[in-house]
């Protein structure tokens, strides 16, 4: 049982409280989803549950938090460890031992459990998570998903009544995320553990949870069952990513279609919307014809073998044109990053040829390529080193040999474009996540490249920031530039890309328009497409991908 009475918390040094007057009660065995835009207080709320606030992160706290009968303000985190287990976002940064077995033992050793109990707990935790084959493996050899499972196992070994997970899937690929979430479901279903989960990607969990709490500006602005929460459209306005099917139903309701409920899964959606599609779904969609420019990236018979002997690309041939928005998809280690690193010359072909704007990448330095190809990496923190935002953006131009006034005017233009003017004299790393991403983007685009590569920019990104970024990328493409997006995010691709290249084991498996590639697939299709696949018999086009397209068809 968790109870919060008029809880208010303000981090030391901050002027605005991170939590304002929270009153909550979470019963035993509940599965609670906490969501909302970043900076809304989700993580802060969770850290109050195991005493990291106020014992680890100092600040001013008023009100009361009681977990399993213990007053959190009086009991430090280590005393709460057997009551509340906490799993964090980055699997890398919560593991302390060298191998799996020792990792699981760590918490138990700290609590001075006898060795035979530790042995038993290790055994059962490994089995519960199905990772006994990893037992003696060094942690640095495991995948992100496996590491996250080890983190959960090491929490579970302490037999907590409550497990709190702070965005456990945001650093994982879809397969890892799926596995972690199904384990979380089992913790709740089969072991009866109370689960508090923070998550952005609602479509994967919404049907599993008993209750949704939406945090915004330090307050719990909504609290209730998933269907009730999403029945009002206001949640979308504050930037919560609504699953496409729910969005479709919300919009249909607004247009006066009478639907009495909100579907949480594709299955429910098919039942609920069958009548609507049968009666109205006959219009054909206007085909999106985009005029392509001339080829800018030409890849011919590209092979790449890493020095360790791994053949990452096998005979890849591609041609990408000006004005194209290309998504590169595929499993982890399918060769996505290896491929795009050839475009800006970070990697050179082992065999074959890569030409960008007519330049063979083997004959140019990476710096020369940087004039034409911009590359934004996943973590903006890897970009940022300068003392001010302005210097950060200017750095790229200085490298490329620009001087004085040219630099100043271009930097100004970029800061303006990305709404960073007011921060130009600030330390980039002190900005919020979304702002840091914009600085990283500005620092690459200031060179006016014709090709922009983004490597998983939306991983773990909240909905509002994601749509801002995508809007910008579309504008940039519309000016005749080329965008290459490496991603796992099917919904984003469905909405914004033109073309999808699917890689598998270092080869191009499919290459075509997003409609051809993303429709009629199983899990790989976006949610709305999986919905309409059942309605093709009524003449509904089977290549509808997004909620807006479905809406156009029906209204």
């Amino acid at each position, binding site marked *: 049982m968790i109870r919060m009475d008029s809880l208010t918390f303000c981090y030391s040094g901050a002027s605005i409280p991170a939590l304002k007057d929270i009153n909550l009660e979470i019963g035993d065995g509940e599965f609670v989803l906490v969501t909302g835009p970043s900076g809304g207080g989700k993580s802060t709320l969770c850290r109050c549950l*195991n005493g*990291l606030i106020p014992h*680890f992160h100092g600040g001013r706290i008023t009100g009361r938090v009681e977990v399993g009968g213990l007053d959190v303000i009086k009991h430090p*985190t*280590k*005393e709460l*460890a*057997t009551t509340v*287990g*906490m799993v*964090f976002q980055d699997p*890398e*940064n*919560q*593991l*302390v*031992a*060298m*191998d799996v*077995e*020792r990792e699981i*033992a*760590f918490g*138990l*050793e*700290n*609590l*001075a*459990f*006898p*060795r035979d109990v*530790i042995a038993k707990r290790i055994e059962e935790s490994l089995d519960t998570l199905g990772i006994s084959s990893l037992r*003696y493996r060094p942690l*640095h050899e495991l995948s992100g998903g496996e590491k996250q499972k080890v*983190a959960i196992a*090491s*929490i579970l070994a*302490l037999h907590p009544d409550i497990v709190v997970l702070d965005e456990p899937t945001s650093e994982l690929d879809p397969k890892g995320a799926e596995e972690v979430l199904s384990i979380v479901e089992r913790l709740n279903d089969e072991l009866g553990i109370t689960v508090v989960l923070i998550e952005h990607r609602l479509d994967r969990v919404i049907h599993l949870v008993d209750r949704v709490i939406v945090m915004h500006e330090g307050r719990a602005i909504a609290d209730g069952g998933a269907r009730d929460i999403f029945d009002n459209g206001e949640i979308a306005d504050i930037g919560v990513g609504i699953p496409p099917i729910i969005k479709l139903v919300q919009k249909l309701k607004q247009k006066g279609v009478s639907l009495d409920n909100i579907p949480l899964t594709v299955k429910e959606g098919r039942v609920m919307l069958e009548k609507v599609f049968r009666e109205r779904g006959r219009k054909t969609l206007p085909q999106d014809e985009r005029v392509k420019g001339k080829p800018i990236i030409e890849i011919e018979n590209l092979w790449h073998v890493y020095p*360790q002997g791994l053949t990452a690309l096998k005979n890849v041939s591609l041609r990408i044109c000006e004005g194209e928005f290309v998504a590169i998809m595929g499993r982890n280690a399918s060769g996505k990053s290896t491929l795009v690193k050839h475009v*800006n010359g*970070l990697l050179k072909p082992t065999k074959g040829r890569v030409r960008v704007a007519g330049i063979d990448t083997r004959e140019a*330095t*990476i*710096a020369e390529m*940087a004039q034409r*190809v*911009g*590359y934004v*990496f996943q*973590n903006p*923190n*890897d*970009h*940022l*080193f300068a003392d001010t935002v302005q210097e950060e953006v200017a*750095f*790229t131009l200085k490298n490329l040999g620009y001087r004085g006034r040219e630099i100043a005017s271009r930097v100004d233009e970029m800061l303006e474009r990305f709404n960073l003017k007011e921060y130009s004299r600030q330390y980039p*790393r002190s900005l919020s996540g979304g702002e840091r991403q914009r600085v990283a983007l500005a620092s*690459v685009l200031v*060179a006016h490249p014709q090709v922009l590569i983004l490597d998983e920019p939306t991983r773990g990104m909240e909905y509002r920031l994601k749509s801002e970024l995508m809007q910008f990328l579309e504008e940039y493409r519309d000016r005749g530039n080329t965008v290459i997006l490496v991603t796992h995010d099917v919904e984003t691709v469905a909405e914004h890309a033109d073309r999808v290249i699917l890689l598998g084991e270092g080869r191009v498996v499919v290459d075509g328009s997003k409609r051809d590639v993303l429709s009629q697939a199983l899990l790989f299709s976006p949610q709305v497409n999986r919905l309409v696949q059942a309605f093709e018999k009524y003449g509904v086009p089977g290549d509808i991908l997004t909620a807006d397209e479905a809406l156009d068809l029906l209204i």
Partner: protein
Amino acid sequence: MISFRYQDKGTAIHKLNPFCKLAWICGVLVLALLFDNPLYLLALFVSTLPLVWAARVGKEWASIMKLSLYLCLLVIVINALVSNQGSHVLYQFPFHIPIWGTPKITLEAILCGIGNAVRLTAIISAFAILTLTLHPDNLMLAMIKMKLPYKSVLVTSLATRFVPTLIDDIGTITDVQQSRGLELNKGGLRQKIRGRMTIIIPLLSNSLDRTFQVAEAMESRAFGNGAKRTFYNRIGMSAVDIAILAFLFLLLAMGISMSLLGQGEYSYYPTLGGMNIGLLEGLMLSILALLLFMMLPLAYLKRRIDLD
């Protein structure tokens, strides 16, 4: 890339008790420092080779030794330049330094450098074997058993734990900055340093962020709990392990007594000393060499007994 880290290859050397390995490395270190005779030092180095072979770490060991070769070269050059002793002058510098005298390069100084390089090589080889075959957590456990404070030991172990992450980070950040047009090898020293800073600053800042997150996670798992900590893994001491330890002490005692008897001494200056080894010394040296080479059979013996 060849990994310089521990990898469990399951050989008899890997399975040796951590205390025995630590005792062995202490033995090699002490003997290497006691003896000056290059013959003795060479024997010490050669005695580490069978272990490399048995532990199947040849490749990794070789790349570590390649690095140590540079160090040896440095030792030889510096000794030759700095040492002013020796009677066979190969080259005399045409200037004079007050108090010091006229600097010169002598045959004896070069040979003395080589002798010390052999000493260094023996020590590095032994340490290479240790790091490649001893699980860091077992090293940690052994250190705690030897009454070193747990927290300091844990910090060391955490630092090792994050080395691979750090290496990955360096790779990514270098890619990032090169993609922004940074040219690492362009310009003078100052520009190069400034270029490296664009990699080092994000690296350090990211590590700092990581520190906080790791601390949070450790706190959540009751780290620093008042009660005495238990250790799940234990280094058991079997009769064989004790026997091996005893044997290593015998080896050490042998070495020390030889050194006390004045054996294994050697002087390079003013002229090279002779190598005449007397009957007693020859006998003792053979026994010492025999003992040194017993490490491998003992490791096999221990494995045999463990398996039975």
